[in-house]
């Protein structure tokens, strides 16, 4: 499976050549050391980009983890078990970082050589964010699950629009750095508001579930 182990080398156990940069040696089946230089996208076998969903990430993590989980290698040597453990940690960490959309953007920005810290939003976006912030403040401490849900949907839709626009900017050649940075600021702002709303939600929803 390409992308799990960079560079052609030799198996640390049987010294057979590793032609396809696989995490498992095709000859002896032993797990190879983790390549620390792989970024989270490459680790999970995704192209660098933002057109990814949580389901894709979950499925890819599971597919690779089931091949490289340390429990597969209980009968192998201590070194092989350590390598399998390191692979499992690396896969889980890569999936965790990509699962969060803002962290996914930051990982990609890091790889593209852009500053990863979200900049301050533009004045227009700041005004919109303040408007939403005020609406959230009004709902604090009030048993208003329905209103919070409506607000969350509205903010979520704006977040998604910003994310999609950013995905398009990042995929375009040449990269418009200024637009990408501006959109990161907006997306991070909307995401922070969504997290605040989620933390406030103590009322049961229609399934009787309480968030906190």
């Amino acid at each position, binding site marked *: 499976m390409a992308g799990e182990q960079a560079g052609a080398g030799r198996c640390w156990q049987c010294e057979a050549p590793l032609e396809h940069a696989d995490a498992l040696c095709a000859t002896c089946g032993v797990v190879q050391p983790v390549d620390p230089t792989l970024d989270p996208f490459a680790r999970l076998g995704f192209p660098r980009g933002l057109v990814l969903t949580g389901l894709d990430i979950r499925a890819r*993590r*599971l597919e690779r*983890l*089931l091949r490289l*989980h*340390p*429990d*597969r290698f*209980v*009968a192998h040597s201590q070194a092989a078990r350590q390598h399998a*453990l390191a692979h*499992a*940690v690396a896969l*889980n*960490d890569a*999936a*965790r970082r990509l699962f969060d959309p803002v962290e996914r953007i930051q990982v990609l920005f890091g790889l593209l050589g852009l500053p990863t810290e979200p900049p301050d939003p533009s004045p227009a976006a700041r005004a919109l964010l303040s408007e939403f912030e005020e609406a959230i403040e009004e709902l604090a401490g009030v048993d208003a699950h329905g209103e919070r849900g409506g607000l969350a949907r509205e903010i979520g839709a704006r977040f998604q629009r910003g994310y999609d626009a950013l995905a398009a900017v990042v995929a375009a050649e040449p990269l418009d750095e200024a637009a990408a940075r501006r959109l990161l600021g907006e997306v991070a702002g909307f995401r922070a508001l969504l997290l605040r709303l989620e933390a406030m939600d103590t009322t*049961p929803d229609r*399934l*009787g*579930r*309480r*968030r*906190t």
Partner: protein
Amino acid sequence: MIALGIDASADGVCATLAREEPVRGRDLGQVWRDATARFGPAAGAVLSAPAGGLPGERRSLLRAARQADIDVFRLISAPAAAALEHAGRTGAQGTFAVLDLRRTAFDCSLVSVDAERVEVLAAVGFADLGADAVDQAIVDVLAADCGATQRDHSTLRLHARRAREALADAFDAAIQVRLPSGAVLDRRLTRHEAAHYADQVRRRWMAACRRAIAEAESHPAWLDAVLVLDHAPMLRRVVRRAFTRPAVVMGPDARAAGAARYASILVGEVAGPLVLERSTHGLCLEARDQTRTPILPAGVPLPASVPCHPQRGDRLVHLDWRGKSVAVEALEPDVRSLFLDADGVVQARP
């Protein structure tokens, strides 16, 4: 090569080989010796422990296993073991809710099972609210009534349990006892009172069940089965209200049997799914001025590693699903990362 399954908790230790009668006891080393004497020399064992136990419990269990010369292949959560056992016994696949009620703890886990994996989707519970919680609530009331001291509590607990059991056939039960401190208790406990205390505890168990369903992004109607491991009568109402369906009662030995099944998978005796677990506690750093910095939320797939840069005097706080601190550990300032191994144990690494 044989490998055993061992379930260990405050309730006791139970060891078994797949499809054999279990060996029970209080001491892990003794149970291991008895089990290997009965089943033959074993290469190692898979341990099972409560899903939401206190963070130090798993570490202590692994230490006890090392001292008893047990080669531990893996420490899995009891609900994952029970789900594996259920799937192995019946051939069922899908998403199961597993309710694990012990004397001192309760967990509700949602576990997804197919031919390749047993994946814990969510595990929520109370490390301090088990089957004894109803008796404890009665003890608290009785102690307040007669001015009992701490040394009277074990006597009170015994009488509370007897009275509660007597209420199965009567509308009230008399409690008359002279306590070790000299205080005298003479009162009647009514069925209504006992039901009130039981209801308070049940409400909290139900909250945990609902939270587990929400965390797994599931719904009671989407579940394929509800498995109850122990104390089934106490959970009957919880299952009915939270899941609106009857439960499959598996019995307390299902945990060790599931661990034994996983042990035979790991040594290659039989083919079967892998167990994929999640962390049950969130982690945060607490500075000297009590400010907290989140490091990792609960429910992260294991194993995992996360960077951590503590200052001198910072402490590592383990948080449960309600955000309540359940354990605190000192951290050296040279720690650079926290490693959650596949057994669910947190290790600080420089």
